[in-house]
């Protein structure tokens, strides 16, 4: 295989693996802030138990997120040297801001969060929880800003030619608030909240099914359900707003998402389907001219299709983009239905009587994770063949000095180490869940009193 493909596989693999963890940390962080806040407000020890329990799972998630994140920071330089030189002037300041303002905040307060229970007052501890949560949210901001700039560059000019060409920042705030960044930051945040809350829902649904820790699990489930319901709904809005932006700024990507080839014609919207790139046809169930309506609120308005772009300036893997995008949307819709129905039962007071619903929640933890992953795959594959949209092609961006064997060597190492890491993650989270939030053997009396 050639260097470009291997470099892309390596990047896709390491970033996809990394992206299992930060969204979980952000989501669990939000829940911890709520739980610890309730503990301080009410003094109810059940909330303290919950906070301490989720902190343990947070610690593992956060740790793996950091470890796999450092690799990303340096992989630009090792595998994508041409790209790094090209975007350094712009991308660099976002990364530097991330380190200085976000990562510094979260990593320092993490020490106090994890080990400071007996050393600082409850209020200072709560403050640290909030700081770690904010830090992780800010991290997401700067990383998504950098990625959004690749999708919709703004506030820059190109200096130099050929090898020495690079983008230089002309307007920092225009760069930060490039056309897609705000929509995408919100979309990513909410995706992260859902990933975390659904883990909380899953674990406590499991306890409720097993008849363990009933009291605190009901409390935790309700908190997480409220958060999940809100963000499932608002995620639809941010997704819609994001798609509107894609229609304007990256028409080829939008066309690939719905398999729309005609140069300029009203476009259909599929519930599901299969794209044949050779015949340029899509088989599936559709709302005729639905995409036109969604984007322009008019069924007859034409949408720019893939054929409006030269063959080498549009995504090659149309069906993959189509599928990833549709999986994401389907999951999003399903989560709305699920959380709304559960909230309705909560209002009726029968939420915890429906065993089958709790079973769905126990497994639903996978759904936001899958949606986050495929959403990113759709976004990044839809950006192809560009690494910086409209300016630098992916096949020009990789390191010229690096050989295929080197990448293969490191890729194999990553596969091995990450496989072990993933098993350790599953094993230790599973162990913490099985062990439960409270040590019954140690303090049986207290246990009965609170749980």
């Amino acid at each position: 295989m050639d260097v470009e493909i291997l470099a892309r596989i390596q990047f896709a693999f390491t970033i996809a693996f990394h992206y299992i963890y930060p969204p979980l940390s952000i989501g669990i962080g939000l829940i911890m802030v709520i739980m610890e806040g309730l503990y301080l407000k009410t003094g109810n020890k059940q909330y303290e138990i919950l906070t301490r329990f989720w902190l343990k799972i947070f610690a593992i998630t956060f740790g793996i997120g950091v470890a796999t994140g450092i690799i990303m920071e340096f992989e630009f330089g090792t595998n994508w040297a041409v790209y790094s030189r090209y975007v350094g002037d712009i991308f660099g300041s976002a990364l530097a801001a991330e380190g200085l303002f976000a990562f510094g905040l979260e990593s320092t307060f993490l020490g106090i969060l994890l080990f400071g229970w007996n050393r600082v007052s409850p209020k200072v501890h709560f403050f640290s929880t909030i700081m770690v949560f904010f830090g992780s949210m800010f991290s997401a901001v700067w990383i998504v800003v950098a990625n959004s700039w690749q999708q919709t560059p703004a506030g820059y000019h190109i200096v130099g030619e050929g090898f020495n060409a690079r983008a230089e920042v002309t307007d920092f705030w225009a760069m930060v608030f490039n056309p897609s960044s705000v929509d995408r930051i919100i979309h990513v945040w909410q995706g992260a909240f859902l990933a975390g809350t659904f883990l909380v829902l899953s674990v406590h649904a499991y306890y409720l099914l097993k008849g363990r820790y009933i009291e605190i699990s009901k409390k935790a489930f309700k908190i997480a359900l409220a958060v999940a319901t809100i963000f499932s709904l608002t995620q639809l809005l941010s997704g819609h707003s994001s798609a509107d932006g894609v229609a304007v700024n990256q028409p080829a990507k939008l066309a690939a998402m719905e398999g729309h080839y005609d140069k300029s014609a009203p476009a259909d919207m599929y519930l599901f389907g299969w794209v044949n790139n050779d015949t340029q046809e899509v088989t599936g169930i559709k709302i005729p001219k639905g995409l036109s309506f969604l984007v322009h609120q008019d069924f007859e308005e034409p949408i720019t299709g893939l054929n409006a772009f030269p063959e080498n300036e549009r995504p090659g893997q149309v069906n993959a983009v189509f599928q990833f995008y549709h999986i994401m949307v389907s999951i999003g819709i399903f989560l709305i239905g699920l959380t709304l129905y559960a909230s309705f039962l909560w209002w009726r007071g029968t939420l915890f009587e429906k065993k089958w619903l709790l079973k769905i929640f126990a497994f639903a933890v996978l759904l936001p994770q899958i949606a986050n992953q495929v959403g990113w795959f759709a976004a990044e594959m839809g950006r192809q063949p560009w690494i910086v949209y409209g300016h630098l092609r992916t096949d020009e961006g990789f390191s010229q000095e690096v050989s295929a064997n080197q990448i293969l060597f490191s890729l194999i190492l990553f596969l091995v180490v990450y496989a072990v890491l993933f098993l350790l993650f599953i094993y230790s989270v599973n162990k913490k869940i099985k062990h439960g939030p409270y040590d019954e053997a140690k303090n049986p009396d207290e246990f009965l009193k609170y749980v």
Partner: protein
Amino acid sequence: METFLGIDYPTLWYLVVGLLFSGYAVLEGFDYGAGSWHLFFKKDLSRRIAINAIGPLWDANQVWLIIGGGALFAGFPVMYATMLSAMYIPFMLFLLLLVLRSSAIKFRSAEKMLWWRKTWDIVYFGSNVLIAFLLGVVLGNVLQGFELHENFSYKGGIFFAFLSPYAIMAGFTTLSLFMTQGAIFLLLKTEGRLHARLTFLLKKGMIFFISSFAITSLYTLIFIHGVTDKFKEQPLFFILPILAFLAVANVPRLVSKKKYFQALIFSSLTMAFLLMLVAFQLYPVLLPSTIDPTYSVTIYNAASSQKSLGIMLTMVVVGAPLLAGYLIFLYKTFNGKVQLDDTSY
């Protein structure tokens, strides 16, 4: 070119990056150093105490690497891209070792099985030693220069070329320096028999450091071309090696007086002076080309635009005091000897 206090922006950013990497060396120096003694402690309890001595701190210390890397990418993208792609194998190993090291910290004490802890102890020790060694190897390579041709294209060996004799010497020197730093840090954090054992180990570490440092310095002076030129031009800077020497000499004296905190300060100063020495000797070059000096990466041909550097310098002015504040708060909270409790690793 725009200036601030008479210093141009690329030079200012050079100082920022230098400061960040010095901070990284000093702080992670004691983390990696402490880990490099790990198998020298025999009892499980000693090993746990040693890990928990850095427990609440190492995440924050690692921030210096992340900000340093970001600062290099942001301010000198050409340097970042050229060095990382040319030193592909050592950096990939370095990154994977970082992952293994943090896994070892997190998972080692999670289970009671003897085989589990022994395996992680070996992983932890090995990754710390190799990380310290590789950092020195990379520094040695930078000092020696790369086979850079026009447009910074690297034409040197790609798999094992980074393991030159000089780089290996630099690797051992860094490892020994970190081990000294780590032992002093652990002396601050421990008591009883482990403390007594560390006093003994520190002496070994100092001997290891002084001998490897002497050999590397001698080799540098004899074989590395033009290292003394800068000092001939500006003899005032001879003060740097003298200061480094005085700082090293002061460490055993303070240790024997049981003034560990001061000893840590002076061993940190040793690192800082040595890095300043390297920085001064290279300036304004970042990565010398062994083919032709005009192909070298310098702070001027590698730098981001004036505008970008200006923005980032502003960020540093705002962000650095904040970061310093967090760190002081953290270190104050966990001041004193290690006490294991139910939140410990």
